[in-house]
């Protein structure tokens, strides 16, 4: 038992790495997803086709295959020297962008075109209308779906153990192997993921409640 008192803090410090992976992945995915959703709705046919292919690519390939493809294939072949952490964040981000674009796209479509029409009628450019009128509403609508994306990302991040990123799972495996007692370390790791998932959904819920638009029930 004494061994665990020493090892559990080692696993615990993996939380920082896991959160780094999640924050980086979600952040990159947010920017990519938002831009993509705008392109998917307001872009020309060529842009739509390219974005469709992107979404299809990243949603069809298992995450672990993507990680290996980029870490061992794409990045070395194109001369990028990314360490496992950076590579994992980029891949998680590119993939999350594909998923997030679908969340934002659905939200924008659910608004209908009348909001942008009203903005244009006031003399706003399309871009201003999207930025000031459409997105503030679409992002609110996106929050529940977005909370799912966070929960998925937390759990997916564990796969980066295959590249040796020092997140929770990688550290847990080391401890399990060193102590020859897998039960407690893996239970502990599982507990950490439960706490992270729960805390994240709590935070998103709080944001959702705080940004609620008075009087609008259900839809926004």
């Amino acid at each position, binding site marked *: 038992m004494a061994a665990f008192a020493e090892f559990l803090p080692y696993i615990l410090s993996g939380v920082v790495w896991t959160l780094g992976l999640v924050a980086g992945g979600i952040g990159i995915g947010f920017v990519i997803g938002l831009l993509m959703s705008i392109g998917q709705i307001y872009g020309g046919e060529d842009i739509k086709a390219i974005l469709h292919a992107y979404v299809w690519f990243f949603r069809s390939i298992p995450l672990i295959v993507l990680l290996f493809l980029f870490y061992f294939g794409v990045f070395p072949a194109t001369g990028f020297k990314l360490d496992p952490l950076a590579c994992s964040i980029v891949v998680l981000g590119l993939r999350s962008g594909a998923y997030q674009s679908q969340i934002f796209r659905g939200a924008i479509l659910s608004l209908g075109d009348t*909001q942008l*029409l*009203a903005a*244009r*009628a006031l003399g706003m*450019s399309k871009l201003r209308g999207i930025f000031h*009128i459409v997105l503030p509403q679409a992002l609110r609508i996106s929050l529940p779906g977005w909370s799912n994306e966070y929960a998925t990302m937390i759990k997916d991040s564990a796969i980066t153990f295959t590249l040796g990123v020092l997140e929770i799972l990688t550290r847990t495996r080391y401890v399990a192997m060193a102590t020859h007692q897998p039960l407690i370390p893996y239970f502990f790791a599982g507990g950490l993921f439960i706490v992270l998932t729960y805390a994240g959904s709590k935070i998103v819920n709080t944001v959702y409640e705080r940004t609620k*638009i008075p*009087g609008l029930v259900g839809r926004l």
Partner: protein
Amino acid sequence: MADGEVVLKVEDLEKTYAGNKVLNGVSFEIDRGQIKVICGPSGSGKSTLLRCLNLLTHPDKGRVWLEGKEITHEVGDVNKARQKIGFVFQEFNLFNHLTALKNVSIALEIVKKMKKDEARDLALKELGRVNLADDAHKYPAELSGGQKQRVAIARALAMNPVIMFYDEPTSALDPHLIGEVLDVMKKLAQEKLTSLVVTHEIGFARSVADEIMFMGDGKILERGPPNQVIENSKHEVVQKFFKRINELYRRNEA
């Protein structure tokens, strides 16, 4: 800016949707201070006409001039032209995430580049003009339909338009809320705010319109002073239309 100056000139407008000619050669003019009402059965091209006039929809053919400057055919900046045209939608189209005040002030800040407090003051003034100064802090979902439409009118007025377009502004309202919107519109008409109004409210048309244009099959079938078009039309379609409207109107009055 004397009376009699042409504010809006429309020449031979055409628009086809999916093989269906919605507008088939529409031409007319509105002078400063004039109020013109467009009537006609649904599907006759009234809404399409309004949207072609401020280029929310691009006409296939024809030209539109605003204060003597052509705005069709990529001449000039469309966004500039739209700033001068107040547009009131049937479904209000208020910005759901903004208070009544912000709904009115946002375009002032973003489009007209006014300072925040200036935009706020002007927005409050415009809300006062539609009798909603006390509800400035409310969100659209907290307002009744009639209040929403009045906010929408204030939002359009704040841009200081040279002409107002109303696209069936009372059609989405419960009957008991129509009056408050019409009252505001009448007041603005009496202030000689140049307006083009698509509506079936013949009471409104009778009391403030200089001319009724009756549309059918994408054309203006008949135009003239309200009483002449409503009571003494030579067209059978027009007679039938107003007979039905009159019956509805009386039922609501009773």
